């Protein structure tokens, strides 16, 4: 006899859809577990990828070719950089710009009678400071050769706030080490050198002449032709201090910014793992609901067997129901996760970067979890004795 049951592929799908549609509330609630898991994973990936994109864009404009040369800390005494370290470095052809700065102990006050403003320092800098650091002023002007030796200052953005100066109307002055200085400019933020935000910048000549500070630079900022970075970097220490190159430390401020992205990576993995746990819990929820559903639908299962459904047909119906249920959760989760990412990124004024492969693998993960969750209930459904099932028996 050649009687064979046959169920068309599209009918497998529509049968499973009917099963889900007939229990809408439960379907949605069950899908929600998966949705939350997927949403959190998508949001984690989306937010960190948007943040990374924003960071890389920022690094791109700031450049990764800025190096900072300092006297090495550590050891009992710090050996200061030689006075001619900066002119020597400038002589290297791949150096585009360099500026020596002297970190001083000069106290900063709003005026001669006021208290010292704690946490704000004074920096003597060569005129190339602004060019080398790509430091721009939001108001006023930078220092230049003509102002180098005069009692004028440019404020870092945080220093300006602390000193209560937001514009240059009326020619504001501050008191540095008991001497009045005219504020001629306020710096924009310096993402690569956040420490400079808290400085009052004066000419190095003024620092030496007016306060008798030793002219040895504390740091030298060096801007290098980008392609020559690797070759040039090792030359800096011996050039700055030929006698004791080991007493010189060379660092790249942009590394710090990049390291922030790496810290994010650890946090991201942790959050992803949490999202994975949520997914797992969602999968267990689906398995539970499917087991209950199979018990409730014995009559339907028996009927389908009587109408000619094979065990395989019943099994695929329930596996597919679970997969669709979970897939629905996946879609909801992706929508939710994307929305969270977009809102968050907008707030941070980042460009939104939602990697499509993250979205696809979100759906894929949901479907796979649903199928796995569906196997056991589906096997139970397929194994039901058709005679018992049609009688609605429980034995």
């Amino acid at each position: 006899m050649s009687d064979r049951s046959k169920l068309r592929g599209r009918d497998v799908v529509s049968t499973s859809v009917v099963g889900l549609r007939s229990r809408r509330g439960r379907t949605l609630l069950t899908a929600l577990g998966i949705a939350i898991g997927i949403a959190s994973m998508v949001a984690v990936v989306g937010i960190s990828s948007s943040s990374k994109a924003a960071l890389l864009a920022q690094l791109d404009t700031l450049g990764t070719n800025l190096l900072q040369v300092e006297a090495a800390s550590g050891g009992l005494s710090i050996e200061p950089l030689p006075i001619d370290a900066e002119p020597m470095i400038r002589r290297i052809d791949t150096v585009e710009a360099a500026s020596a700065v002297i970190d001083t102990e000069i106290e900063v006050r709003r005026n001669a009678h006021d208290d010292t403003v704690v946490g704000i320092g004074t920096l003597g800098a060569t005129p190339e400071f602004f060019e080398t650091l790509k430091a721009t002023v939001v108001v006023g002007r930078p220092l230049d050769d003509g102002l180098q030796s005069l009692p004028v200052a440019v404020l870092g953005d945080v220093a300006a706030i602390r000193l209560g100066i937001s514009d240059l109307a009326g020619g504001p002055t501050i008191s540095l080490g008991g001497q009045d200085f005219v504020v001629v400019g306020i710096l924009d933020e310096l993402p690569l050198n956040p420490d400079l935000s808290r400085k009052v910048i004066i000419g190095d000549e003024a620092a030496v002449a007016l306060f008798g500070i030793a002219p040895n630079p504390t740091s030298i900022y060096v801007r290098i032709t980008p392609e020559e970075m690797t070759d040039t970097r090792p030359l800096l220490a011996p050039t700055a201090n030929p006698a004791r190159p080991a007493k010189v430390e060379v660092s790249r401020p942009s590394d710090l910014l990049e390291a922030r992205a790496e810290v994010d990576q650890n946090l991201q993995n942790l959050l992803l793992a949490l999202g994975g746990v949520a997914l797992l819990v969602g999968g267990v929820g689906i398995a539970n609901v499917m087991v209950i559903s199979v018990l409730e639908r014995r009559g339907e299962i028996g009927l389908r067997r009587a109408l000619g459904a094979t065990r395989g047909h019943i099994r695929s119906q329930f596996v597919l129901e679970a997969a669709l249920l979970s897939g629905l959760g996946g879609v909801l989760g992706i929508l939710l996760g994307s929305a969270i990412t977009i809102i968050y990124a907008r707030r941070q004024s980042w460009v939104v970067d939602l990697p499509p492969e993250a979205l696809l693998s979100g759906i894929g993960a949901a479907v796979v979890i649903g199928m796995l969750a569906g196997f056991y209930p589906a096997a139970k459904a397929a194994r039901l004795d058709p005679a018992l099932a049609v009688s609605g028996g429980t034995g």
Partner: protein
Amino acid sequence: MTAVLTLEDVHRIYPGSPPVKALVGVDLTVEAGQMVAVVGPSGSGKSTLLNIMGTLDRPTEGRLLIEGTDTSKLSDRRLSGLRSKRLGFVFQSFHLIETLTALDNVATGLLYRGTSGRQRRAMAQAALEKVGLGDRLHTRPTKLSGGQRQRVAIARAIVAEPSLILADEPTGNLDTATGDGIVALLEQLNADGATIVVITHDPDLAARLPRQIEVRDGAIRTRAGEHRALENEHRTVEGGADR
């Protein structure tokens, strides 16, 4: 011509302690075009018999032949195929899918034959018209009366034009008048050529049908009209059952 259905010395023992001997040596032949009433008190083994006739259950002993094919050698899969093509079922509790319209419920009767959706719906509509529900195609079962639901179920049983229709207490959930209507419908289908086995515990209903088979304690007594007399032989039957 081969019989539609043949049972040869069928036993069905449900395992347990003690085991239940639900059927004890049933021989039965149903020819094409017949309409047979299986009657007997509750617990006598009627449903067990029908499940075995419908290949939903297998005999512990003995054989079932459907149109000459010995089903005892068929795999579960083949049995499913056989059901999809040759058997139609009507149950006491209708077993309709509530979220589907009458039309889609009836079309489910063709689902596991691989018939296309379009053809399924066309055939389902014809079947619904045949049972007098041509005006209820798109109504859901919850909006139908009990009698109408059973008609939908009957339409689903006949839509694939099976060789044999098996009905287990089709009037069991219906009042007498509605039940009579259902029996009349089954008689009509039989008159049009369908082979039908109806299970009932209602002797009056059974008496209306051309052939009656009485089941008592898992065995067949032939003449339903004599059931009062048979009750006196009950013990003998039981003795026979335990042989």
